[in-house]
Structures are given as C-alpha cells and as structure tokens.
C-alpha cells in the first residue's frame, strides 16, 4: 500500500479540467426565474416607505413580510435580519428581491424602486465607534463583545521593566475573491424547499432555512454544488442568499437562481476585519522581554456575525509563538455602519500575527540583534503553557523550523549584508506563527459535536457521508484516502459526493482547518471499526466527536486549551524596492511548516502556495477602503489580487511531526500559509527602505508616504 502522502488524481479533476463541472450558474432547470437584490444605499437609516412600480406579469417582489418564521440569521448573536424591515445599518444590506424570467426586466424594475430613508448619523470607523454614544448599533455598548485575559503577574513585571517598546498597527479590509461569485438556486416542490449552491457550510444554511421558514428539518434541504472557492467567504454569508433564493422559490413556485455579479459580491459579502492592534513589550535590565500588554480592536461592521469568534482567535494568536511569562490581553469587536466583516482564511490570525511579528522585528532592530536568531530564545516548547494557560501537549518544533527556513533562505547572511548596504534598497524579513486547528475554545466539543457516517454496501463499496464541502481544497479526495487506507481497500471502492443534508449528518462546517484533522479522524475511527466487521454485507456506522481528555477550556475566564492542536510555520521573504517608483519586487519566498503529516503532497502543496499568495496579496497589493460606509474598490480592476507574474516561485519544506489525535498524524493546514506571509513581506520592505512600517498593504503609495 502506498503511503498516505503520495499524491493521487483528484476525484473532481476530470470534470473541472474538461469544463464539465456544473456550478450553480450552469444550471437552468425548467421554468427557472432569476432574482436580484435591492440593497441599502445608505449606511444607517430608518426606512420610511418603499415605492414600487407596477410589476409586469410574472414578476414578483420578495421582502421581509414573506418570511413566515423568524427574520434573523441564526449565528452567535441573533441580530441580523435576512431582509431589512424598518431599518438598515450598512450600505449593501438586502432589503428586497425582484424575481422574474428576464434579467433586463428585473434591472428595469429595480431602477424604478424608490426607498425613502430617514437618515441617521452613521458610525464609520473603529475610532468613531470608540467614542460613540447611544443609541448604539447593538445592545448598550459601542462594541458587540469585549474580552480580556491575563497570564502571570503583568503588573509586577511591568513595574520592574527598564525598557518599553511600543507599536500600533493597522490592517485593512481584505476581499476573498473566490473566482465564483456567490450563487444559489432555490427549488420548491410544494412541500419541501431546497437550496443548491456555492457554499462551505450546508448546515448553516439549513439552520437559516428552518429559522426563516419556521419549518421542520424534514421540509428543508441543502445541497452543495461544485464551488468556485470559498476562503471563509462562503462560511456564514451564503445563509443569506440561500434563504433569499428559497423564499423566492416558495413565493413563485418556480426554481429561482440568485447570482451575484462581481461588484455586487464585493459590496455585499463579508470581508476580513480591519484592525488596530497596540502592543507594548516590557524588557528587563538584560533586555529580556518580561511582559506584554496587547489590545486588539476589530471593525465588525453592522452585525455581529462571527466577529466574537474572530476576535477570540485574534487575541489567542496575538501573543505569537513566544513564551512570555506575563501577559495582559484585551480585545473589542466594534459595531460600525460599515460592511459586515466575517470569516476569512486565518480568521483573525493574519491581523494578529502581522502585529506581533512586526513588533518582534521592531524590538530586534532596537536591540540591534539578528531578528531570526534572537526569536529562538523565546520559542514555545512542549510542556509550556499557552497565553491562555493551556499546556502544549505535543512536540513544538520551532527550533527545527527556524533552522530549516534559515538554511533554505540564507536569512542571516542576507539580513546582515542588507543592513550594511543601506541605500541599496534590499531587504529580507522573517515571521514565525501558528494556527490553532479546529474550532476555538470548547467549540468542537460543545457547539459542533460533529457526526460522520460510513456505509458498507454488499458489493464491497463504502460510502462517506459527511457535510464537509469540496471548495477546491481537496475534501473529496483526502477524506477518501483516509478511509481507503484505513480499510486497506482500493480507493475506487470508496464513494463520496458533494454533501446533501438529506443524506449527510452534520459534521460541522468546512472551516477552521478542521476537515482533515477533525472530520478525517472521525472517519478513520469509523473505518477502523468497519474493518473489524468487514465480512458483514451491508451496514452503517456513525461516530460523534469526543473531546480528548487532556483538553480543558473555561469560556468565561478564557482559560485553558484554546485549540485542540496547533500547526506551526515560518516564512522568509526577500525584496528589492525601486528607489524611484517605490515598487517592490519580491525576490524570494521561503516557507517551512509543521502540519503533522501531509495527506496528499500535491493537495498540500496547492494549499500552501495558494495560501501564501493570498497572504502576499494582503501584504502588498490588496487595498480595500471604505469611505462613508461605501467600499471604494468594488471591481477586480480596482481591487487587485496577485496574478501569475507578481510573485516568484515559493520554496517550501515540511517538518514532519505526526499528531496522535489526527488521521495518520495530520493536523490543520488550510489557513496556516495565509497567516504568516504579510509580516515577513513587510519586515523585508522595512529593512529595504529603512523606515518603520505600521500597516498593510505595503503599496508603492504607502512607501512614498513613508519616504517623504
């Protein structure tokens, strides 16, 4: 039997390469209608009235009055309506749908709809939210949630400090730019409604349908179609268009397709949270860091969405890969009348690691030490406790990772050479980071309680039934590999299709780098049991997630093991900056990761190279600004993502460190490569230009500002 890591042909390969994979927009069931959304054009207002034109025959309006159940998206805090009632809180908020057979006629109707707003003063930034007075957007405070935790005795350590290094960093929005915009198809058969479409989390939409309709689960069904990328942008957001398409199908009795065009997608869907992160490090007489105070502030937009969990991951990541004995960490997710921010690969981690790694670079510069070698003496190791006091039970191979990335990139030699060649506009930067695999805190054990199902058929084939989606990351291949290898049967005997809630139990969402590690492990356990009963003809097995006994979490005190396990990594980026145009040429990118054990080397390589590229885009070019609550770059001509010519080949090495709780030793991978690229890039530019960088993206315009 081949090793689990050896690459195999992806099961979705032929259809995708031959152009035969049918994404949502490729489907045209008999009698299908189109829907388009009328959205708020103002950031905060009461809706006084909506004036509709006379509708041509066959055209229908769907608004909040068509929601028979509860008009609230079911998520952490229940504050966001599926369709606005008497108020709107951000530009792009859905108000109503126009449904009919001809797209041109729909646009014509939309052009004649007048919404009469009574404008209210909007809150449009973290700073404005900090000073905001009632009436608040949410509850009785200017933020959705505020957290704090401490480790050791920061007060005492701070009193002993002789040197303080202080930084404030800002990061902006990032847009996912999955190549396929949001897409849903609603179908109603007179009794049951189904939402087919582009998604990461069928059961989120399933909950949304049950709540909006007030129907039992026997009357709602969600089916994933081939999905053109997600990156978090199809985690919680598709619950909204999914419910919209279903409402329209129920009202018209016909299949209804709801496709976003690109500008609408950028204006309406969630984004990565903008952040302001302040860090203070306290050093003793020997220049050892003895304490830190860190304050994380996120712009959550108009509705809470997943922001509380994003903030948690942010504050649990922001202490970095270092063992600092005394910590005080605070965080707030502010309510603003900006677009709703939400899940995006890394989920609060990229902002946090940008801040802590740039802060470490700044301290190293101030101390005049080699930034990479100096970091080593602070690296976390097995047996240490995390910032939240959870014991690291597994080997932490940061020292090996550091040596490998140093060997690959020749970092030290370059760093000292570029330092002595000031004025040559060259720089090299490094970053060290982790990503907690699986849901934060007690999420896996208490919220998700994932279930998987495996069926054996009389002909010796085996069916996988999970809600994990294939969004390009290879879930239709890696999960089959785990089952086939465990059962020691040819992989062709293992069947798996895109998930359908009518057949697949809720294995949790396809997020948080959890599919292989958590869902894959449960499938492996099922397969081990199936192997023992292999002589039986037809039977099925289910397994539910059970929290490993060594994990502990107190969600009130934010204390214990914030994640079931961690993946680790380091990046080095080398740049040259043009002294006239300030354009940055990336000369090299090196990356070393500990992801446990790779399940399929090619799929892993694809996740790594794609993730780093998304991180480099975030670092260097992806600028998305909001003015008056309106996004200024709402097309791919204005919001630039990396193309094939923008960055060079990436050199990658894996440090094997099998995790006993993961299938074949695998840990989480999907988000980790996104997390560390930005600080390595920005630190490299910082060395090249000799000026402190305190934000991303590091565009030529930003460098010009720093230089003049």
């Amino acid at each position: 039997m081949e090793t689990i890591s050896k690459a195999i042909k992806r099961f979705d390969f032929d259809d995708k390469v031959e152009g035969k994979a049918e994404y949502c927009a490729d489907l045209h069931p008999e009698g299908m209608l189109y829907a388009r959304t009328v959205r708020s054009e103002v950031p905060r207002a009461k809706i006084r009235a909506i004036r509709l034109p006379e509708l041509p025959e066959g055209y229908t309006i769907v608004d909040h009055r068509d929601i028979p159940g509860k008009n609230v998206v079911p998520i952490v805090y229940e504050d966001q309506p599926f369709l606005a009632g008497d108020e709107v809180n951000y530009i792009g908020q859905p108000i109503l749908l126009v449904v009919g057979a001809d797209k041109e006629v729909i646009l014509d109707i939309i052009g004649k709809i007048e919404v009469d707003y009574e404008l209210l003063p909007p809150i449009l930034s973290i700073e404005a939210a900090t000073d905001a007075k009632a009436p608040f957007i949410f509850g009785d405070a200017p933020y959705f949630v505020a957290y704090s935790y401490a480790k050791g005795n920061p007060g005492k350590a701070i009193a002993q400090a002789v040197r303080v290094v202080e930084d404030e960093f800002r990061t902006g929005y990032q847009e996912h730019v999955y190549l396929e915009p949001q897409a849903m198809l609603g179908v109603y058969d007179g009794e049951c409604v189904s939402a087919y479409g582009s998604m990461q989390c069928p059961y989120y939409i399933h909950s949304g349908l049950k709540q909006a309709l007030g129907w039992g689960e026997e009357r709602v069904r969600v089916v994933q179609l081939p999905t053109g990328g997600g990156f978090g942008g199809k985690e919680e957001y598709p619950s909204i268009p999914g419910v919209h398409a279903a409402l329209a199908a129920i009202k018209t009795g016909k299949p209804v397709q709801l496709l976003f065009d690109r500008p609408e997608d950028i204006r309406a869907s969630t984004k990565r949270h903008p952040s302001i992160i302040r860090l203070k490090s306290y050093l003793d007489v020997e220049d050892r860091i003895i304490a830190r105070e860190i304050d994380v502030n996120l712009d959550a937009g108009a509705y809470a969405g997943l922001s509380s969990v994003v903030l948690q991951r942010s504050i649990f990541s922001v202490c970095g890969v270092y063992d600092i004995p005394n910590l005080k960490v605070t965080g707030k997710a502010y309510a603003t009348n900006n677009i709703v921010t939400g899940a995006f690969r890394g989920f609060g981690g990229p902002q946090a690691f940008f801040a802590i790694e740039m802060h470490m670079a700044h301290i190293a510069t101030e101390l005049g030490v080699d930034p990479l070698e100096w970091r080593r003496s602070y690296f976390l190791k097995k047996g240490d406790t995390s910032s939240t006091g959870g014991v690291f039970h597994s080997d932490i191979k940061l020292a090996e990772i550091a040596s490998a990335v140093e060997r690959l990139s020749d970092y030290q030699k370059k760093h000292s050479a570029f330092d002595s060649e000031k004025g040559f506009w060259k720089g090299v930067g490094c970053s060290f980071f982790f990503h907690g695999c699986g849901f934060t805190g007690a999420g896996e054990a208490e919220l998700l309680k994932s279930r998987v199902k495996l069926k054996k058929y009389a002909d010796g084939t085996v069916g996988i039934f999970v809600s994990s989606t294939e969004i390009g990351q290879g879930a239709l291949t890696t999960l089959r590999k785990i089952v086939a290898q465990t059962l020691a049967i040819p992989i062709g005997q293992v069947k798996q299709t895109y998930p359908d809630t009518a057949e697949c139990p809720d294995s949790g969402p396809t997020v948080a780098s959890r599919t292989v590690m958590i869902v894959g492990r449960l499938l492996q356990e099922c397969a081990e049991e199936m192997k023992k009963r292999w002589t039986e003809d037809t039977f099925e097995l289910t397994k539910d997630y059970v929290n490993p006994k060594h994990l502990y979490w107190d969600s009130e005190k934010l204390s214990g093991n914030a994640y079931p396990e961690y993946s680790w990594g380091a990046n080095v980026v080398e740049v040259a900056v043009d002294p006239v145009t300030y354009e940055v040429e990336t000369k090299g990118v090196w990356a070393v990761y500990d992801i446990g054990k790779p399940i399929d080397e090619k799929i892993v390589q694809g996740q790594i190279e794609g993730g780093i590229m998304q991180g480099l885009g975030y670092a260097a070019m992806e600028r998305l600004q909001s003015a008056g609550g309106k996004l200024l770059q709402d097309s791919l001509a204005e919001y630039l993502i990396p193309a094939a010519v923008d960055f060079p080949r990436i050199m990658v090495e894996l440090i094997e460190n099998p995790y006993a709780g993961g299938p074949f030793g695998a840990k989480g991978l999907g988000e980790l490569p996104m997390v560390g690229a930005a600080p390595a890039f920005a630190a490299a530019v910082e060395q090249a230009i000799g000026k402190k960088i305190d934000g991303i993206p590091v565009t030529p315009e930003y460098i010009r500002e720093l230089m003049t």
Partner: protein
Amino acid sequence: MTEVISFKLNGQEVLLKTDPARRVLDIIREDFDCTGPKEGCGEGECGACAVLLDGCLVNSCLLTAAMVAGKNIWTIEGYRETERFRLLKAKLEEHGSVQCGFCTPGIIMAAEALLSKNPHPTEAEVREGLSGNLCRCTGYTMIVDAVLAASREALDSR
C-alpha cells in the same frame, strides 16, 4: 433590434438571430450550452470566460455578437477533443494544478493560446501568458509547471 449573425463555434458553423450588442459569453453559455467559460467578473479582468477568437485569447464577456461575425471561436468544449488538450490535461494532473476549477477552462485556453504561438516558452513567458487569468487557489506555480511540462513534450500539432 436583432440581426442574423454567423460564426464558427468549436469548428461548427452556427447561425443565430440576436441583439448584436449581446455578450458572446451569454450567447455561448445560454444558446449553445457551452458552460465551460465562466463569468468571474464581467469586465475582462479575471479571464474565467476566456476563449480563442481566431486563435487569440480574448475574454468573451467583453465581446459582443457583432464583433464575432464570420470569426472562429474555440471554447473548452471543442478544445477538449484535441490531442493537445489531452497532453495539457495529463500535465495539469501530474502537477496538481486544479483546485476549485472555476478558472481552469480559461487557464487552459490561455495555455493553448500561448503554446500555439510559442511552443517552447520560458517560465517568464508562461507567467506572462497566464497573467490575464486570475486564480485564487493555487498561487499559479503548479499551473506554470504544467504548461512548461506540456511544452517540453513538443506540443506542435492540433
């Protein structure tokens, strides 16, 4: 206003009565069921709708019906029947170049447009040739390597 427009689609003469300002992307997807070309941006930035027009790579979302009268269009639906496609497909498989797949048909047309004019491109030329096609999943290098590998196997006849 409609006009009768004829062009060749994947080697077959086609004739239709349509608005001459209608987008070719919509015509080939809706009227001829060629759904390989995808709409990713609708403004010629992403390349997901790329087709070959008389052998040149163009974004079909920017073409109107009037612009293709008498011309020769190839989409993935026709190109996938060729030997050149089979070689490229084998290399894309070997190099793990496909993830979500939404950009893939456009990328394949871009690779064909490049290799048909420059059978042995350098890596820089391949990157340039693919620079009009956005991919958010792969980071590009695994696609670039597949195109280079295909070129090494002497792609020289359709």
